[in-house]
């Protein structure tokens, strides 16, 4: 059970970091953007999203602060830190390596 969670977590982290690379967002905004970017394929359960956000913040890859949304609502905005950017680059190349490898295996005849 733990291993499955790890796999999901790793992917989710990458996705969150990617959405924040485009600019600060609040939690709901992150989930909305993920849905949009994946054309509704990826619907991250909020139950997983927030623990992941706090974990990333705990690791120092993102930071949070309260602010006001364009719609005039008070919300907590998450921003990518410098360490987070490095982490994103590392995770992305790892993912590409992994995804490419899987793809090659599946392409094999």
């Amino acid at each position: 059970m733990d291993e499955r969670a790890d796999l999901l977590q790793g992917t989710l982290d990458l996705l969150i970091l990617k959405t924040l690379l485009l600019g600060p967002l609040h939690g709901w905004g992150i989930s909305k953007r993920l849905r949009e970017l994946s054309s509704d394929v990826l619907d991250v359960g909020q139950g997983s999203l927030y623990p992941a956000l706090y974990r990333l913040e705990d690791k120092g890859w993102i930071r949070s602060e309260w602010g006001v949304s364009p719609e005039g609502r008070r919300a907590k905005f998450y921003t990518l830190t410098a360490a987070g950017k490095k982490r994103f680059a590392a995770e992305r190349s790892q993912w590409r390596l992994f995804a490419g490898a899987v793809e090659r295996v599946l392409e094999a005849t």
Partner: protein
Amino acid sequence: MSQWMQRIARRIRALLHGDAVDGDVDAEMRIHLEMETEELMRTEGLSAEEARRRALVSFGGVERYKEAHRDARGVRWVEELTQDFRYAIRGLLRAPAFSISAVLVLALGIGASTAVFSAVDAVLLSRLPYPQDDQLVRIYNQSGPSNRWTLSTVDIQALEEQSRTLSAVGALRGKRVAVSYGSAAERLPTGFVTSGFLDALGVRPVRGRTLEARDDAVGAPPVAVVNHRFATEALGGDASAVGRSIMIDGVAHTVVGVLPAGVNDLAGVHAQIWASLQLEPPTRRGPFGLYVIGRLADGATLDAAQRELVGISNRVFPLWSAGFQDSTAHLVPVSLRGDLLRGAGHTLGLLAAAVALVLLIGVANVAGLMLVRATGRSREIVLRTVLGATRGRLVRLLVTDSVVLAVVGAVAGIALGAAALEVLKAIGPEVPRLDEARLDLRAVAFAAAAALFAAISIGAYPVALLLRRDAAPTLRDGDRAVGAGRRSHAVRGAFVVAEFALALPVLAVAALLLNSFVRLQRVDPGFDPERLVSVHVSLPSGLYPNDSGDTSVRDYWARALPLVRAIPGVASAGLGAALPPYDWGDFNNFDLVDRPVPPNTSQHVSPWVGIGDEYFAALGVPLLEGRLFTPGDTGVAPVVLVSRSWAEHYYPDGSAVGRQMISGGCTECPRTTVVGVVGDVKYDGLNGTGDAVYAPVTEGWPLDLNLFVRTSVPPAQVVSRVRAALASVDPGIPLNEVVNMDERVYESIAQPRHMTALLGGFAAAAVVLAAVGIFGMLSYTVSARRREIGVRMALGATGRTVIGMIVRRGMGHAIAGAVLGLVAALVGTRWLASTLFDVDATDPLTLGAVTLLLLVVALVACWLPARGAAGIDPVEAIRAE
């Protein structure tokens, strides 16, 4: 690195402000829900209510989310721990009978053992309060393996002159003497010491000077060092004490120094004043009576000193052989610490062993209770497992339970221990330095260790049981399957066996001590202590010179005795140098003319009691043979009376009257003749022999004598008149307390009485705990096997069969435990042998009786739950399942 620090800072903040962070999370979550709701309303045209419902569904459980969030913060374990403790305390409060009895048992066990530990720590484990205390030795004369006695002037002077292995030696003669200063006079414990005594110990005054070698010389101006208390109370402070003149035993002494505050004992001897001891040049090897200590020179070992002292003894012996003929006697050094603690280790060891056993029984008992409780909780545990609690979490839950019990037990135990230590000091064994025992940090550490041991012991098995369970049990069989298994039955049984095995030795020791004490109490002291009082009169040597030809002591008593005898209510009054039943006064060696000891061997010794006329009448001791002393017995032709035991000991085959002896090893003195035999009087304790030789006090007139007064009315009515009569003869003599002899006999066995009471208390606790243990086990068995018993009864088993079945199971364990305990007792009680009076350490009657007693108690404890089982209604029991 800084990232790590940030993380730690974040976690601390999260921990400290858990509620605030939770509030933050609440807000964020609320906003998320609101945004999602609005979005759903906007994009899908749902009603506000429906949109909110959908938003909630997609969000998932709020609490679960918060929990996960806390997990991410990394503080969950602290919160869980707090939660575990809260839960454990709540759970324990819900079962008050269990909790209270467990805490009480642990508190009693930990408290009693902490108190005994403090005593052991103060008495046995600590060092003597002198620099390099391992260099200090006490020196004895020894002949044969066990015959030890004190030193004489010859001995100490030989040591001072010849010893190289001892860097200092000192002699002490302790006495309560009259001390007067200004217009006040009182009787104070005083140590007359040579300068080497303070020197060897390394004790230095805080003011003035110490005793020096020049003070030891005969004819030097007498000086004294006083303790801080005497300087403060009697001489107006340390500063004004030095230089003051005080009268000690009638001789003017100058105070030259004051000891540091708190130094009231030196080498185990209590005194307020330490006066210079000036030893006259010896005229013979004896008399002995000096308490001598020494300090080993740097680098010298006890063995080297021993060899040297044998050499010195052999050189000294021929010089004084005319009066002392035991060539096998020689000086021996022994560790001062060991000498002071002689017997203390034995007594405290006995207490420590008993208290440790009681603690173990208590822990076994609580462990048994815990197991029953854990079994009772198995449904809860199964439920928790099903709901997703991890195994680690469950283990923590069970461990927390035992930790809470042990901690509460330890805290209560420490409080109890403080009280128990005071009790121990008040009625405990008379061992040196017990009064210094404190419930200090070391004792608290001991209590903590005992609590840890208790927590592990009582928590271990329930946890093991939980960990061993492999397949997840189902809720349905949760009630029975867990813990009611054969294995946990066996473990509970083992606890009960252990409790009985541990209880029996404690009970056996208590019973042996009781048996011994009862016999001791029945011993005839040899005199009638009712309506008999004694007062110790010590005439100051400065005013009563007592030299040859001086008659002042005789004159004092010639005036005092008729005054006392004239008091109405006084039946008789007599003088004696010894104070029965536990002060023999003097010892003397002697050789029988008609059956002398072989050459170069030790002569016989016996208490040698100087007595005046009417002594035997006052004490109520019968004359059995021959005659009493007459005024004609003045010492020209020395005569003695002997006790019946003495006569039977040395002349088992005929009369002792008329036999002659050489007394004190003095071959040139006139021979001493036995003129009569009197009844036995105990002078060496009620457990001692009745041997005694009586010499007329008129031969020597010692300065220290006891006046025994037999009254025909209650003694309280004449005591003040006796004191007045004595005071009228010489008002300058401070008088001692008047002692009621019946109280003195009672006090003489105070120590065995107290030990018997203490051990009796431990034994009672042990038996009750063992009984509770077996009762608990069987009560549980009955409730766990309710259905089976119901079936048996439905199939025709009678109440008697059921009772028999339960009792057999319980008694099997009790008997197994008792047999194990009996074996342990047979091995262990031999150690008691030296403490027991007139009882064999393996006395079969006593051991048999305690085994029987324990089993009868067990039978009652088994019968109660068995009777409950017989009352089970079969229909109800079967249907209840």
